[in-house]
């Protein structure tokens, strides 16, 4: 007792340390079973603290371990991949949707044909012979007007999504490798869509969802004058649906209040070290499907995760470009080129080797403020006309 009186802080430290260790040990097989424990890096109690980052708290020990068991097996839309390729036909024909102008469909495959707004074809005011889409409504009208001629029936949402070619291995999981289990078929198919050049008013009915990279797009381009943004540093796909965005509310509140024409999403860098490609893809699919449910008429434009610079790529076991590519290849397969699209802004900011151009970044991960315009300019070449 005398000792305790003399040095209460020291004993409280000891006692609390022991208490946390007991709690961690007690929850090791229940609430903390997803925590990887590396004894060489710290004591057992570190899992208790690490778990708090994933919103698992010690007191959940006493409410029985029924946490985190509910999520799987909810959304699994891809029933079979037998006819997974049949949608190709659709995207071929979408090339011809615009204005019925024969000239435009002989345009090069890069998909830079442009759509005139209100009255198809005869608007030459945009100069240099390249009419641009003005205004979202115009684009919609054109789409619905001509869609009937050339487009096939609206494909049912969420069907025929390709299955992965293989599963991630245990080793890949343990080493935080995001395996490329889908291959580039999704990316290729998504690129077949004939995107058009648009002007800024195109984004008037757009919503951007993203992490700190999208924060940069919001803060350092004038897109925020047109579009709404749900973006937050450290956002992950796991948090998109739950996050309460400052000044905006949750995604659900926003999307139930307002119907958007386009929803852009780019997340995935923060959770690169978490789970496998399958885990990420499962959640991503759930998020996209949920967004669609809340805003059925909106086009969802999945943006491939922006890459990191070569320096980062070679030095980092987690935040590197092969992991990013593995995940991009997965989410690209969600694109049906009708409800969901996939675009990859990396082509606007990467060097020949496919790494984020070192000149455009200081921290090897984010675009410097002034270079966010490259991203915006890229987005303006990826308008959806139909």
């Amino acid at each position: 007792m005398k000792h305790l009186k003399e040095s209460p802080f020291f004993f409280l430290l000891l006692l609390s340390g022991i208490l946390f260790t007991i709690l961690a040990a007690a929850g090791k097989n229940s609430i903390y079973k997803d925590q990887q424990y590396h004894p060489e890096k710290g004591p057992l109690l570190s899992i208790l603290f690490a778990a708090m980052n994933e919103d698992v708290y010690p007191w959940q020990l006493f409410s029985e371990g029924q946490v985190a068991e509910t999520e799987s097996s909810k959304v699994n839309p891809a029933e079979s991949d037998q006819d997974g390729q049949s949608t190709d036909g659709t995207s071929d024909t979408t090339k011809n949707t615009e204005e019925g102008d024969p000239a435009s469909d002989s345009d090069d495959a890069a998909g830079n044909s442009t759509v005139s707004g209100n009255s198809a074809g005869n608007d030459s005011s945009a100069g240099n012979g390249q009419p641009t889409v003005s205004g979202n409504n115009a684009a919609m009208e054109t789409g619905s007007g001509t869609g009937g001629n050339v487009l096939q029936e609206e494909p049912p949402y969420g069907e025929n999504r390709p299955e992965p070619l293989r599963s991630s291995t245990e080793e890949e999981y343990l080493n935080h490798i995001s395996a490329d289990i889908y291959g580039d078929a999704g990316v290729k198919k998504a690129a077949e869509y004939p995107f058009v050049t648009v002007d800024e008013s195109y984004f008037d009915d757009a919503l951007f969802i993203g992490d700190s990279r999208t924060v940069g797009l919001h803060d350092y381009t004038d897109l925020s004058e047109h579009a709404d943004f749900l973006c937050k540093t450290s956002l992950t796909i796991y948090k998109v649906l739950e996050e309460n965005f400052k000044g905006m509310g949750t995604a659900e509140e926003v999307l139930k209040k307002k119907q958007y024409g386009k929803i852009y999403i780019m997340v995935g860098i923060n959770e690169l070290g978490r789970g496998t490609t399958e885990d990420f893809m499962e959640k991503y699919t759930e998020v996209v499907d949920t967004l669609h449910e809340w805003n059925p008429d909106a086009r969802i434009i999945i943006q491939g995760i922006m890459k990191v610079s070569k320096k980062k790529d070679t030095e980092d076991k987690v935040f590197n470009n092969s992991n990013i590519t593995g995940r991009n290849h997965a989410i690209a397969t969600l694109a049906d080129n009708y409800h969901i699209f996939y675009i990859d802004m990396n082509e606007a900011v990467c060097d020949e080797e496919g790494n984020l151009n070192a000149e455009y970044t200081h921290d090897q991960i984010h675009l410097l403020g002034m270079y966010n315009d490259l991203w915006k300019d890229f987005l303006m070449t990826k308008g959806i006309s139909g």
Partner: protein
Amino acid sequence: MVNFAGMEFIFYFFPVFLLIYYLVPVKYKDVVLLLGSYFFYASGDLKFVPLLLLLTLCNYFMGQQIRKLSEGYKMHDWQKIERKRKLAFIVSLDVTVLLIFKMLAVFVDSTLFPLGLSFYLFKMISFQIDYYRGEIPEKTSFLSVAVYFSMFPQVISGPIMRYNEGTEPQNRIYRLSQLEDGMKYFAAGLGMKVLLADRLAILWNDLQMIGFQSISTPLAWLGAAGYSLQLYFDFWGYSLMASGILVCLGFDFIENFHHPYASGSIGEFYRRWHMTLGRFFKDYVYIPLGGSRCRKNRMIFNLAVVWLITGLWHGNGLNYLLWGAVLGLLIILEKVFYGEKLKKLPVLRNLYVLVLIPLTWVIFAITDLHQLGVYFGRLFPVFGGAGVAVNTGDFLKYAETYGKLFLAGGLLCVPGVFDFLEKHRKNPVVIVLLLLIFWYSVYFVAGSGENPFLYFQF
């Protein structure tokens, strides 16, 4: 493991070491401290352990030689000359080693700079001069000298303790009250480092991420203030942890910071900031050169020398030289022109420090001189620092995000606040507060253990 604010140190090395240290008899405590320190150093920089050992041997050996020459009733002139020669030799050797490794780091590879070299070599120089001057009265044993040079709480970043500030094992205090105080300092330091400095570091990181050309002028000033606080709490926190560990081991507390931001002049600031380094330069460079008790021109020269060396010591870029030069210039101006007038302006002199010091830290922070120019252009846009893609709303955004940290940090800069807590450290409220600070810090440290980028989430 060499990071005091890391899980391995807090939960493995330190408790195990402390337990052994307390269990062994007094006469073996220094052996344990030496072995523990070498183990600690080796875990951080194995390849340079032999260098530390070699320098320790050289310095101990020369120290004994110098001492021997002074034994006897009266020193002859040849003895005096010989002592001086030997001192000059060993000090030049120490300085040369430092310079060689600095060169290697600049021109070959920065990983070639041994861990803690600039700190433990300064202790070696300090030891030689103190020994020469007779400030270390008794004969020293190899063990206690080796412990002094390598002791793990100080080997990496100081404080640069003097030899006679350390106590021999038999004179140290081994009581629970010592552990109690030491752990409190450690927890306070850990909190400053993890909860303030590391979090404020994200602001500076953000500014670099945005690019200095795109930050607004108010944000540039906020960034300078944030960096000033970050540096302060990083180093003060570190020093508190180091001294807290020493207190746990039975030593006296070594003060390294004494509320510098409450200073009334730049000169005073550097008597309160990294005090053990300032004291080193004062005692071993400035005063031997003549200090301020000489002609004015000579004093100006002395100050210039001290501040150029200070600049060089802090880093390998030109910006450090510039930083040292600017500080030297300000201190010379204070000494020669307006120092006395400043003393009569109570609030203005504080503002003078609070505006100028952050500007000098900006020079310290930005190693690329072009980028440094860009930053000053944003700080003072009247001089033509036009921004590119500046978001004028950025200040509010960051002020909101980091406001709490500025508030907490600002409060701790007020001398009375920390002193009050220190004085009432036995109060249950303070104890509980420190306990919360400790575990909240551990929460951050544990969370970032697996993935250091949890600090810098994207």
